[in-house]
């Protein structure tokens, strides 16, 4: 009976067979690649983040990392039990998206956290104004530490408006006036070395830590995955850190529902 097998039927089975074989080979290849991790070297020298993901061990700040601009641009309490350190780029859309989340976290926790903002303008053509934006904030901060964050807030909030604006300098000048800066001094400081060197210090820290993307956030020195950079995710991490740091004194820091009214 085998000899009488229909030729057409035989033909129609061939592509299915080939497709099946390819599927099996692809799955096996994927399985092989997954199960035999090599200790490959990265030309960028940054294996820490990748390896951390592999072992689900959080990436932490290396002990010998450069310290960054000192004093850092910070809010909250310098003696708080939980420190958030964010590295961001003013032209990075994700940093713009994370900004209101950070604002909410800061207003929720107030002095229970220390928030440090680090400039990490990426040296890429698409982020052509990023470095200057960081300098603009540092120049604002030279008039008052709070002015740094007021300028930072305006730059992130209006990111889309100025990033494509050829007259962005004029727009920034408007922001400077809006937040009550001495505009002449601010412009002078922007051109000076002090503001730039603070940005450079932050960048040195970021590079020394092997950071290769923004926003990068550390909570008490532990890298936070981007997927967790939302209000719920961050609150969970901060509450856990608060509970860990003061298990006896603050019995219920994880329930900020009743504390929200006291902040403003």
């Amino acid at each position, binding site marked *: 009976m085998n000899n009488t097998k229909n030729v057409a039927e035989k033909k129609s089975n061939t592509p299915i067979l080939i497709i099946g074989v390819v599927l099996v080979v*692809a799955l096996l290849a*994927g399985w092989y*690649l*997954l199960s035999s991790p090599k200790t*490959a070297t990265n030309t960028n020298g940054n294996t820490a983040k990748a*390896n951390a993901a592999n072992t689900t061990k959080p990436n932490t700040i290396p002990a010998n990392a450069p310290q960054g601009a000192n004093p850092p641009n910070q809010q909250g309490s310098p003696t708080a039990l939980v420190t958030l350190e964010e590295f961001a780029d003013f032209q990075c859309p994700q940093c713009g998206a994370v900004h209101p989340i950070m604002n909410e976290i800061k207003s929720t926790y107030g002095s229970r956290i220390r928030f440090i903002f680090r400039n990490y303008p990426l040296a890429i053509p698409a982020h052509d104004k990023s470095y200057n934006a960081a300098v603009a904030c540092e120049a604002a901060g030279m008039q008052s530490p709070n002015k740094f964050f007021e300028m930072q807030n305006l730059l992130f909030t209006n990111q889309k408006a100025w990033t494509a604006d050829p007259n962005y300098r004029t727009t920034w000048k408007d922001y400077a006036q809006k937040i009550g800066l001495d505009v002449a001094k601010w412009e002078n400081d922007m051109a000076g070395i002090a503001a730039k060197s603070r940005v450079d210090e932050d960048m040195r820290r970021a590079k020394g830590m092997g950071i290769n993307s923004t926003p990068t956030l550390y909570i008490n020195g532990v890298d936070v995955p981007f*997927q967790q950079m939302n209000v*719920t995710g961050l609150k969970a991490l901060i509450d856990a850190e608060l509970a860990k740091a003061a298990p006896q004194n603050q019995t219920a820091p994880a329930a900020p529902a009743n504390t929200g009214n006291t902040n403003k």
Partner: protein
Amino acid sequence: MTEPEITSAKRTIAKLPLAAAVVALAGLADAVYLTAHHYNAEPVPCGAAFDCEMVLTSPFATLGGIINWFAAGTIAPGTAIGEIPLAAFGAAAYFVAFALATLTAFGDQRMWKLFGAQVVLMAAFSGWLIYVQAALIGAFCQFCLISAAITGTLFTIFVISLFIKPKTT
């Protein structure tokens, strides 16, 4: 094969899906490699002109990251589906493209239309991913560019097939 009077144009058409299948296989290999890289978190070998890790660890490397990008400001917590790397979808897409091209090569012409529809979508998405690398991440990874080139080739093969009409008498 059963028709003795097959024209040269018909033969060319039969070869195009075959070529597409072979090209799709290369895309499948590339995407499987990147998918495995994502899950075992091994850095990929990267040329000096590229920054593969920056691209492959960016939010745009996962489905969830892309959804977040389009729904700006409403970043959802990481979910199982959100963590799926884009490369895995690429692997699935190349496999389907391979299957459709193979079925066409063996005579099922209806599959070529599906192949065309899929390849047009893939090419559009690849174009957007190149934009993401250039404008939003500011770095390229060569495996991503290889994938884009493969999709471009599949698209070109399909377009060529539209211009080669069989000489039917």
